């Protein structure tokens, strides 16, 4: 591979670093196309010039992939919200958490509920921005929802652990929620970077 082509491909790698799968696909397709042009007798420089400027094309690739990123983030958020609610209720019923009292338990209950409500509120803000055709501004509310739900899950688990810390069900449900939180946080963070790039 010529140095000029490697430099050109690196421009796409850098611009699309927020989505490694997209960056890899773009690199492979651009490399195949320019390789084909070179096979047909063009110089690497001419083939690159005819392909177009990476600074103009990379945002087009990002815009094309944006709806799929939005869907994945939204679905991940909904799954997180549903799982948090169901598992929180399950722990509450099984371990009679509603009867736990004391200052710490009350504070944790407050954080749990406020976090869950906050997650819904941030989700609604994100949904509203998407609905109004302003999806590139949905990143911060997605991150807010992830943070609020993470606080809710942490408080719910701490409350349950205080009542029945040794029960494997607490660790199992906690593991599921933590995995979903991490997945949603990852989606939300990537969405935020993708949206910022698309918005320019």
């Amino acid at each position: 591979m010529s140095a000029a082509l490697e430099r050109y491909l690196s421009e796409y790698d850098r611009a699309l670093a927020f989505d490694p799968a997209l960056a890899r696909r773009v690199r492979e397709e651009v490399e195949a196309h320019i390789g084909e042009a070179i096979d047909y007798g063009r110089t690497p420089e001419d083939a690159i010039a005819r392909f177009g400027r990476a600074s103009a094309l990379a945002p087009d690739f990002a815009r094309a992939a944006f709806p799929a990123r939005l869907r994945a983030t939204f679905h991940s958020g909904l799954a997180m919200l549903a799982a948090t609610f169901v598992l929180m209720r399950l722990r509450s019923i099984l371990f009679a958490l509603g009867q736990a009292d004391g200052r710490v338990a009350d504070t944790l209950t407050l954080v749990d509920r406020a976090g869950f409500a906050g997650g819904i509120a941030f989700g609604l803000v994100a949904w509203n921005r998407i609905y109004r055709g302003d999806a590139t501004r949905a990143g911060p509310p997605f991150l807010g929802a992830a943070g609020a739900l993470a606080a809710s899950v942490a408080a719910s688990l701490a409350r349950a652990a205080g009542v029945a810390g040794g029960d494997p069900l607490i660790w199992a449900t906690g593991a599921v929620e933590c995995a979903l939180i991490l997945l949603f946080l990852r989606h939300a963070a990537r969405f935020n970077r993708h949206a910022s790039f698309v918005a320019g």
Partner: protein
Amino acid sequence: MSAEMLKGHLDNILLAVLEPGAAHGYAIIEAIRRRTGGRFDLPEGTIYPALHRLELAGLLASRWVEPPTGRKRRVYELTRDGTMALAARRESWSQFSGAVDALMGAPA
């Protein structure tokens, strides 16, 4: 013809070029040039984001093909939805271009 003017019609152009069968990006560009007598000469990279968009919309499918001799390429082809979309867009284009022709032709 300017690239900006073409961009608005790129999705239809790509669907039409892929109607005869699967093709990779370089072949698509060549087909556009050949079938338009060189009048549509886009920066070649312009078609790829559009191909991605059409694939995500379910109108195209793609796969990597590695011939025994030669270069590995991603080829694109119309899906069933893509074929139906092309038929609908062709009909719509026919009406639109007929109406514009009626207006842009010689003054009445």
